[in-house]
């Protein structure tokens, strides 16, 4: 039974979607649906097996491709719009939007709330009741380190394509310094926002943690985002692209805290005595030193020497 329902649901959604894409190349439609063109053509063929009783000449569904490879549909007008949204669909959207709300109350918060409002209003009244007060039961906490003001300024820069001067806190010097950047886009990673931008100071593309930007100021000079840059593609990979100047850093964690480390870090490995080891590539050792320092004597940097020295430097600078 579940299998039939699934197929019926799929068709009740697919037919209106195809109706709305009439006249468009099937190649594009398949791409939009995330299926192969062959699969779409098979679907179109099977749609032609259906129709509306009493099955007169104008009652049989038609889904064909013209000579230019464009979709043609006929006799499916009753499926001009899809079935209303179901509560589980609205819920899935809400859950996947929540991380965007975290720490961006000023920036994406308005957009996300706008979407959720519109979706809730589109639900049937009986379903709407079910999601009522939900935003008081499932919510995103704004981390104290969030920086909605800076994110908002950078978004404005990205929209108007104007360069921006930022004061950025560098973990290694413990100081903020000023630099001019050209924001290409923003990535949400593990609950924090990052800006991907061309940095005039280092003359290369860099990833900046938005919470470390003390101030951002729009400049007059304009810039262009490189033709081939795709923020979503960028986000799928590692968001800190290696520059070739990284060094291998080896960390050790005592058996007492190893479990916490293993839980959060996929690359960490468990040693026979219950301790954990973690190797990573890094250019800037300051943040690693500070992270290790959080665990006190339960964690230590094994190598390189420069990273070990960084810990000593922080402690020597103790106020």
């Amino acid at each position, binding site marked *: *039974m579940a299998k*039939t*329902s699934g197929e*019926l649901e799929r068709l*009740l959604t697919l037919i*209106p*979607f195809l109706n709305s894409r009439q006249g468009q190349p099937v190649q594009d439609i398949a791409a939009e649906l*995330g299926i192969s063109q062959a699969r779409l053509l098979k679907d179109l063929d099977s749609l032609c097996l*259906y129709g*509306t009783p009493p099955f007169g000449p104008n009652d049989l569904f038609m889904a064909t491709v013209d000579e230019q490879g464009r979709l043609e549909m006929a006799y499916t007008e*009753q499926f001009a*719009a899809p079935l*209303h949204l*179901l509560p589980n*669909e609205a*819920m*899935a*959207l809400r*859950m*996947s*939007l929540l*991380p965007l709300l*975290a720490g961006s109350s000023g920036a994406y918060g308005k*957009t*996300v709330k706008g*979407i959720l409002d*519109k*979706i809730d209003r*589109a639900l049937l009244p009986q379903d709407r009741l079910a999601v009522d007060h*939900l935003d*008081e*039961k499932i*919510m*995103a*906490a704004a*981390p*104290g380190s969030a920086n909605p003001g800076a994110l908002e300024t950078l978004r404005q820069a990205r929209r108007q394509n104007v360069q921006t001067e930022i004061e950025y806190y560098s973990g290694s010097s*413990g100081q*903020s310094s000023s630099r001019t950047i050209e924001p290409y*886009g*923003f*990535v*949400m990673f593990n609950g924090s926002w990052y800006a991907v931008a061309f940095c005039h100071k280092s003359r290369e593309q860099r990833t900046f943690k938005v919470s*470390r930007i003390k101030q951002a100021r729009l400049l007059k000079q304009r810039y262009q985002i490189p033709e081939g840059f795709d*923020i*979503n593609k960028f986000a*799928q990979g590692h968001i800190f692209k290696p520059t070739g100047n990284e060094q291998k850093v080896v960390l050790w964690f005592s058996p007492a805290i190893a479990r916490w480390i293993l*839980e959060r*870090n996929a690359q960490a490995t468990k040693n026979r005595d219950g301790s954990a080891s973690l190797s990573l590539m890094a250019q800037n050792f300051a943040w690693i030193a500070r*992270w290790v320092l959080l665990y*006190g*004597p339960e964690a*230590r940097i094994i190598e390189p020497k420069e990273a*070990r020295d960084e*810990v*000593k430097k*922080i*402690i020597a*600078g103790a*106020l």
Partner: protein
Amino acid sequence: MAQQKTERLLELVSLLLKHRRPVPKPEIRRLLPHYQRLSGPSFDRTFERDKRELRSLGVPLKVYSIESGEEVDNPARAAKYEAQELGYLIDHQEYYLPRLDLASEEWAVISLVCAGPQSPAAKDQAKALASLAQKIGCQKPGGNERRSEIGLSANARPEAAAEAKVLGRLQQAVKEGVSIRFSYHSIQRDAKDQRQADPYLLIYNAGVWYLIAYCHKRKEVRTFKVSRIQELKLLNGQPRFNVPKDFDKTKYLGRKAWEMGGGLVVPITLKVKPESAWLIKKELGPQAAWNKGTDRVTITVSNPDPFIRWAAAHCDQVRVEQPEEMARQVKVRLQQVLKIYQN
């Protein structure tokens, strides 16, 4: 069989959507070849099942009296009619998705989350999102899309897969007020035990999901890390619980680890390095009281260990002034670490 049934149901929906008036049951039977082939009682049974199935999918299938044109919305009343006196209709207003009028930025965000990386463990969620994307995609305006300014990164933490396995059912339990039973991995003790709880609140904080629930075993409200919840069962047979009126959710939002303990509340005075003050200010959050015109700040700590850890890691930016005992503990910790690196 399955193919036949899909065909029958799709044709029934198509028929009822096309006719804007109620279609009598005998006419439905006459028009659908699948129904024609069945004997009388067998048709009745199949038709009942089909109606149930369509309604379970959210299709607003309504029953009307042919004679009076009134809706017959309860089965007991419907039973009083002869078959030919009742007609079936799909309510257009309820069936069709209304226009959402999404702004272009809203479109960008929705396509982002729908097309974004999905955890392979969250199959149901991914399926629901794909269906939603197609439904509202019907309303998408044509033309060139502006290049997106945001990207979502796949969550690479091992925890994320564990979260995805239970999050869907947890949200349902929270939404409907259903008690739950689960096995919880207490990382402190590195042991698993069975818990029963009333889930009050789900919080997403800095990339991690937490459940705030009343724990039946401990008889108090506790914070659970969702990724450590396994073998989750919803106790649907039990009465629904109510979140107590005095439950204060703000207590759990954006709180620091050192504010979460149940210990004695101790005020602590810190001196902050001026260049780092803006950063420390954000880290300490709104609860911190800054002495105007100075670089001193007072915070309250009820769980000293996380505070000592934080203060040691920020020793070049903050110094504990009061109480002295706390300052001493931070110093001891730093000396222990220094010893490791001097050897």
